[in-house]
């Protein structure tokens, strides 16, 4: 088995009396996009800043690219790129100048123009950082982390505060890093983001990892029942006649409508039974929907325990 890019065992960190991280274990493999999710104050940023070499830990074993981040070396810093939670840019330097400044910090930087294209700022290369939009500033920030051509990239809430289209652009950019063979560790509050980008997701709550799996399997998501819902006119044949167990029927949005829902572990068979009943009874199943639990459903369940 190849060495993991990041391995954490029994990580602890307290601020005074507050235990921010209480025994985190994680492994991130090379080439993965790994998302860490969890409520505010769960210990995500503390964990990240320990991995980045900013914070000392109280206990636990941590290795990042084979090095203990508590003793960062120059050679190690050459191989990692960091985007902090708060964007920090020299507002008076242009996009190109900002990247040139950071390129000078690395022994083998990626060409500046390549990075400008990679983060989608070709049109703003000569614009000062202070005059960019919020999303563009964040992308320049990611560019500064990429200009050293790192093997591992840390992104702390890279798209917080973005509008939906800026978020999509940022996702395309991060997904593109996978093609470059980079390993990415990101934190996020957006489950859609974790779903779209991540190969694996870890949920941190109250300083411990409560779940760690692929987005599809997280929290036993793959085995959770499908939720099926539809509407029928009131006063007609009742959906109860379809012979489905556990169906609940409630009044719909107005008098003439009833809303029916049930959870099914064999949705194909149940849907077949339901639709044949409806065809025979000659009624239309309005707003028919079969919904798998989303990552957000699982996340809320895991973090509200």
């Amino acid at each position, binding site marked *: 088995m190849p060495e993991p890019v990041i391995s954490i065992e029994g990580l602890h960190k307290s601020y005074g009396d507050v235990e921010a991280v209480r025994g985190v274990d994680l492994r991130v493999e090379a080439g993965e996009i790994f998302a860490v999710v969890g409520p505010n104050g769960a210990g995500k940023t503390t964990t990240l800043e320990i991995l980045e070499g900013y914070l000392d830990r109280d206990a636990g074993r941590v290795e990042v690219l084979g090095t203990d981040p508590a003793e960062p070396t120059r050679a190690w810093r050459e191989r990692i790129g960091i985007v*902090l939670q708060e964007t*920090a840019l*020299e507002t008076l330097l242009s996009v190109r100048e900002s990247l040139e400044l950071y390129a000078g910090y690395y022994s083998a930087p990626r060409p500046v123009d390549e990075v400008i294209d990679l983060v989608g700022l070709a049109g703003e290369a000569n614009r000062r950082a202070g005059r960019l939009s919020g999303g563009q500033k964040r992308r320049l920030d990611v560019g500064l982390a990429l200009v050293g051509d790192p093997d591992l990239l840390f992104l702390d809430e890279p798209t917080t505060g973005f509008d939906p289209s800026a978020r999509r652009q940022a996702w395309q950019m991060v997904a593109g890093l996978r093609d470059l063979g980079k390993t990415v560790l990101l934190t996020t509050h957006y489950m859609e983001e974790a779903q779209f980008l991540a190969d694996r997701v870890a949920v941190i709550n109250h300083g411990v990892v409560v779940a760690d799996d692929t987005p599809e399997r997280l929290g036993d998501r793959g085995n959770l029942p499908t939720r099926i819902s539809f509407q029928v006119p009131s006063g007609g044949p009742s959906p109860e006649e379809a012979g489905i167990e556990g169906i609940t029927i409630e009044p719909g949005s107005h008098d003439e409508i009833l809303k029916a829902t049930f959870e099914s572990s064999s949705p194909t068979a149940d849907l077949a039974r339901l639709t044949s009943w409806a065809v025979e009874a000659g009624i239309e199943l309005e707003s028919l929907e079969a919904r798998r639990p989303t990552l957000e459903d699982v996340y809320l369940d895991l973090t509200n325990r």
Partner: protein
Amino acid sequence: MTSIRLALHEFRFSQKIFWRNPGSVFFTVLLPVLFLVIFGTIFGNDPIDTLGGIPTTTYYVPAIVTLAVVSATMVSLAVNLTTAREAGLLKRGRGTPQPSWVFIAGRVGNAVVVSALMVVVVTLVGKLLYGAPVPWRHAPEIALTLVIGAASFCCLGVALTAIIPSREAAPAITNVITLPLYFLSGVFIPENEIPDGVLAFAGLFPVRNFFEAFFTAYGSDTTGFSVEWLSLLAVAAWGLAGLVLAVRFFRWTPKP
């Protein structure tokens, strides 16, 4: 050699940022020149008898040079480093392979170069507007005073960031420290107007000592190598204290 290359890289960008910031250009470059013109206008050009009859404007050249160097070094560095710290720029930079000292070195280099430029500018403006003599013969003493003073006030500026809690507080705190000292030390008001006791008190602080060193170095009536060693030593002692405090208390990140 690598270290020098890294520091020069940082310095080059510090220069760009400095000249693009209207605030730093106004307060560091234009304001001292403005002060020289204002004081020359208000106090006229009468000879100061207690100082060997030198014209008031000749007195003001080393005075404003003192102010300009303190402003380009201590004040600029304190404000600039606090701003960079609070904006997270220093923290971000520390996440790169760049050795941390380079981030300070680039800005110190900028402060020293701007100081040297201001010595030349203020001296030339004094010559052009008021005919204050350009002390070519004393260039080595002026250079020595500049180097020791700029280095010392840079250390004090870095140390000051430790007591400045926020970006907004930086100009206020540096002004509270420098403005009274400019008045008490004879930088704003000719020293023959200031009581001896006040001057003696000001002599405990580096601004007065720095001014005395510049005043002697600029002295047109002296021949040979004229250096106010005691004053320079006092400036250097303050600088050393600043260095110790800076090393001990400098923060790279905003307070959590």
